[in-house]
């Protein structure tokens, strides 16, 4: 029989509507503007760990159009709006990432993305915390939120200092935690190092984080800056944060990089990494570079996985329980 029915219960479909209504109330009260940006773009995401869906042209097309990309995030377009003078903005939008399917992944999922002018990542963590507590109050009781620097989280929960440990020591810490890993080598470079750190974060730290409360982790290694500003110091850190509840990664935020040259350089580094590991090159978003050259106001931004948030709010074990039609049925 064709599995035509939704995988989410009617009750969960209603919970999503309730979450969206609360979310809009939160931003209306803060006077943050709701916006909408394109889902289909000529530029893609260069990040080596994310693969975009690319469109194909149909055979009888009258015009030659270049392959286009389904957004993996609305961040580039939203930053162009910031540069154009929109003020603080938010939107909820579907995003698409290939090869991501599992208990907590669906190739199409919904992001809540917002930017707050004149905020750094700490101020935005405070606002994200207020947001989570506001939308959660109708669903679940959360205990006091906890905040750890990336370094403290690694030391506390994985027993290793991410800034001073050698790759060999990171590997030993994984073995100690009972992780039997295939495919990571011990060559001491940034790339391998980040892989080991990602392994420890996703398999050891996440599992040991306190439960039933929002947990924020902030100030990441510079090699994992993505689009965050870097704060010089010893060690220098990326002004980036993540939010976890019950070990589920829910949000990623930055004190946003606004320097056009630095942004262009990070795109370039991404391309080199992609080439190095045999991945296809992706046209970088030069509209974003142009907008940053014009000038983007100082701000912090965050992306919240709404489906996962709904999982936490409804106690779902599998993402399919909160999606009407997961990719297999879409």
């Amino acid at each position, binding site marked *: 029989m064709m599995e035509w029915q939704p995988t989410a219960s009617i009750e969960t479909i209603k919970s999503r509507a309730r979450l969206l209504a609360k979310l809009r109330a939160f931003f209306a009260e803060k006077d943050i503007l709701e916006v909408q940006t394109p889902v289909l773009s000529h530029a893609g995401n260069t990040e080596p760990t994310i693969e975009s869906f690319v469109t194909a042209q149909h055979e009888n097309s009258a015009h030659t159009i270049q392959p286009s990309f389904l957004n993996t995030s609305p961040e580039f377009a939203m930053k162009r709006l910031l540069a154009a003078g929109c003020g603080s903005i938010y939107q909820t939008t579907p995003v698409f990432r290939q090869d991501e399917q*599992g208990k907590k992944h669906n190739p199409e999922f919904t992001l809540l993305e917002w930017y707050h002018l004149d905020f750094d990542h700490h101020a935005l963590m405070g606002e994200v915390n207020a947001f989570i507590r506001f939308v959660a109050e109708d669903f679940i009781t959360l205990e006091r939120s906890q905040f750890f620097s990336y370094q403290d989280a690694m030391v506390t929960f994985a027993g290793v200092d991410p800034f001073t440990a050698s790759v060999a020591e990171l590997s030993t810490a994984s073995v100690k935690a009972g992780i*039997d890993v295939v*495919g990571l080598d011990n060559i001491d470079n940034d790339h391998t190092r*980040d892989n080991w750190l*990602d*392994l420890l*974060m996703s398999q050891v730290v996440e599992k040991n984080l306190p439960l039933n409360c929002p947990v924020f982790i902030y100030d990441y290694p510079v090699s994992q800056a993505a689009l965050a500003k870097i704060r010089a110091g010893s060690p220098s850190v990326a002004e980036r944060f993540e939010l976890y509840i019950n070990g589920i990664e829910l949000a990623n935020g930055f004190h946003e990089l606004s320097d056009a040259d630095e942004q262009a350089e990070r795109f370039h580094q991404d391309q080199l990494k992609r080439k190095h590991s045999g991945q296809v090159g992706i046209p970088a978003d030069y509209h974003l570079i142009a907008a940053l050259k014009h000038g983007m106001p100082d701000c912090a931004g965050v992306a919240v996985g709404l489906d996962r948030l709904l999982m936490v709010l409804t106690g779902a074990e599998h993402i399919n329980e909160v999606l009407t039609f997961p990719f297999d049925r879409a």
Partner: protein
Amino acid sequence: MATYSTNEFKNGLKLMIDGYPCNIIENELVKPGKGQAFNRVKLRNLKTGRVLEKTFKSGETVEGADVMDTDMQYLYTDGEAWYFMDPNTFEQVGADETAVGDNLKWLKEQDMCVVTLWNGVPIAITPPNFVVLEITETDPGLRGDTSGGGGKPATCNTGAVVRVPLFIEIGEMIKVDTRTGEYVGRDKG
């Protein structure tokens, strides 16, 4: 043998891990929003039955295991090996004690079993879900007690010891569920 990439991983896929044929029983993608993806995989070693957990960096490839489940008829044992025949090709294979393992006690001549072959060699035997066995030894039956309450141990012609109701007597045929080792009923056939 074919190799498989982590994005082809799914339950039931048979892979060579540390020199042993293994079967994926659980596969979960673990991927930070910004970061390296991994597959957290639970596997059963098809030779030893042991369950192990491995984490693969996504994109890694692993050699497949040439493992096949074949329906075969149990023929006989010479004390060293247990011989099975493919009823279609009449091909015969001998399984050693490790492959037969605890299932020895359910093997009855002419029963159809599932023989797991790795590179053509039997590594595991799965008996039929239900087997009919003859009682060779048990305490005298209590006539009139058909309640089945209590029960007593009974030894069967294959050596299996099964808990049976008090009224069962030596020489009777009983049906046993090999997955639980439990008595199902008298065989009326």
